[in-house]
């Protein structure tokens, strides 16, 4: 693999649920790349398909949901359709996942030391005596005080933020090249969220690890991610470097998302520019742009044909007819 190849490449991913006539597409042609050491944030509201996208990267989809087509290449190797033994090796050792709810992601009956050490055992990366020592070191590294004494403690003896740290420690145990974090801070107190994000950032810089973060919180992503991918109704609607997407969002959905959170420019007591309607149900989608029903810029064409992702900058893409037209009209090659 040469220096230019991204660590992870996703192409035209389609994830469906149901069989035969009853099939519904949950992820409809998603593609993006992640380079080594990069932090990419996938942002969207419930039902947009971001979690399904992440879970399909490591083939951890729930029963009844499957990848119907597409490519997932990790270090040049195709993961979809790979042998189960190969996948098992990749999971944990090369790609690790931090799940959303620490309470259910940890075994309530086992000590945290054993759970953190489990990937080491599964991938035979350390001998028995070594493993617990490494677990203690990892726990200490993620900020849990007195980790050697706490190896036998059960998850319920830790607070929410600390449980999340335990999950992160477990994910790191085999030194993965890629970490997928599914809503790692949702449900945690705000000040703890900040701690966890700082931890993730620090770990990434130390280990050169790439991280894919899934979240519904745009402001959170803005803090730490290098690039942002915005999803809506199973598709990517905008992607680009964080600074650009945040300072001048192009897609009307991204604009609306950013505007929905009260900010310095909103007067207290005034109405926010809220989107009408709700995120669509995936079973009833028509041929056109899925955002069109709620879009303030929607035109006639938007209802008929769905837009494709087109470049609006050196590293940015937007899927919107109106944006595309405006760019062509102004003839400019850059965002601003």
């Amino acid at each position, binding site marked *: 693999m040469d220096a230019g190849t991204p660590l992870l490449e996703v192409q035209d991913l389609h994830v469906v649920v149901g069989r035969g006539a009853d099939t519904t597409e949950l992820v409809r042609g998603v593609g993006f790349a992640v380079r080594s050491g990069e932090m990419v944030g996938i942002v969207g509201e419930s039902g947009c398909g971001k979690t399904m996208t992440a879970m399909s990267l490591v083939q951890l989809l729930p029963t009844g949901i499957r990848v119907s087509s597409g490519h997932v290449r990790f270090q040049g190797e195709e993961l979809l359709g790979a042998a189960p033994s190969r996948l098992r090796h990749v999971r944990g050792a090369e790609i690790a996942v931090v799940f959303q709810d620490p309470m259910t992601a940890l075994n309530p009956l086992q000590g945290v030391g054993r759970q953190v050490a489990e990937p080491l055992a599964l991938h035979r990366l350390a001998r028995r005596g070594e493993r617990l020592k490494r677990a203690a070191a990892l726990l200490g590294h993620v900020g849990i005080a007195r980790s050697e004494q706490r190896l036998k403690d059960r998850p319920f003896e830790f607070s929410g*933020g600390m449980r999340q740290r335990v999950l992160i420690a477990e994910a790191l145990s085999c030194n993965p090249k890629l970490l997928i974090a599914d809503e790692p801070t949702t449900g945690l*107190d705000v000040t703890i969220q*900040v701690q966890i994000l700082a931890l993730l950032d620090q770990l990434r810089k130390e280990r050169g690890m790439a991280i894919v973060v899934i979240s519904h919180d*745009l402001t959170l992503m803005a803090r730490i991610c290098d690039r942002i991918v915005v999803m809506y109704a199973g598709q990517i609607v905008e992607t680009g470097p964080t600074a650009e997407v*945040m300072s001048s969002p192009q897609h009307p959905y991204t604009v609306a998302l950013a505007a929905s959170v*009260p900010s310095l420019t909103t007067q207290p007591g005034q109405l926010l520019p809220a989107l009408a309607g*709700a995120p669509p149900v995936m079973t009833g989608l028509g041929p056109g742009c899925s955002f069109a029903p709620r879009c303030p810029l929607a035109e006639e064409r938007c209802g008929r044909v769905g837009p494709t992702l087109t470049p609006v900058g050196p590293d940015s893409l937007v899927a919107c007819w109106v944006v595309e037209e405006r760019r062509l009209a102004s003839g400019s090659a850059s965002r601003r």
Partner: protein
Amino acid sequence: MMTVKAARDELLRVERIRKHFGKRSRIRKVSRVVHAVDDVSFEIGRGEALGLVGESGSGKSTIARCVLRLERVDDGLIYLDGVELTRLGSRGLREIRPRMQAVFQDPASSLNPRWPIHQVIEEPLRVHGWGAAERRDRVLEVLEEVGLSHRYLNVLPHQLSGGQQQRAGIARALVLRPELIVADEPVSALDVSIQAQVLNLLVALKKELRLSYLFISHDLRVTRHLCENVAVCYLGNIVEVGAGDALFTNPLHPYTASLVSAMPLSVEDARQRGQTIVLAGDPPSPLEPPSGCRFRTRCFRAQTQCAEGTPKLEPAGAAHRAACFFPLDPDFLRDRAAGSPGSTG
């Protein structure tokens, strides 16, 4: 019934309430008492909104429940339009309930899953003996106010989306024409784009119906948007109170500053505001709050004095006050953003 005349047009007054859960064990030295709320006081005027902001364990939800008389306070007084609530018997309570209603956090579980929407909304009317025709009229009226279509009168809650469910919950809260609405994290469980819709609804209703809100939230930005005044809670105490903007631009209490830096007011802010304040350690348990100032174990400005005395909200009577022996300078956050050496956690 005790009545007290108030100075300005005050609707709700809470005086030094305390609520502890659990029993103090005589046998063991360690007490299993949760100090949920300690010495909390505030007022809300008619047509005004006060936000209670804090994280888990801050006591904000307990305060809301005490005001609604869903819990009995151990100490302190609560006045709604001059009527003292804590000693009220069940009859008096029933009479006064129509004047203060509630909106809850989880839209799905705040509506009875077995009742169709019209029944959920009209329940308060039934309980207070309204006739069928009057109920129908009022329900239709209130649906209009919250922007929910008549189509949904006969559906069950789980058939509605989260935003619609929350609107139904708001409709139910409005149906008796209350003067005070206690809203416990009403938008936290909603998607961001729906949050904005519901927030707008709350803003509009406040203006049209001259409602007062006691608005509980963990999100300082949302609270500032809706509420004239914001009180920051930490471990059962109010540590700072003032106008929303003041708290954002010139927080006095170190905890407020860390909350503000965790929730920047704009996405550019998020990248430009320099170093976020990262607090050390976990919040202490409400079972054993630290002595003296409860925030001192995580505070980046703590000194020995902070362990000895408990700071009070000062300056007394001012619009913007904080309970801290070493309040921050007005330019604290701006200096941090500029990169000057402020202490971090």
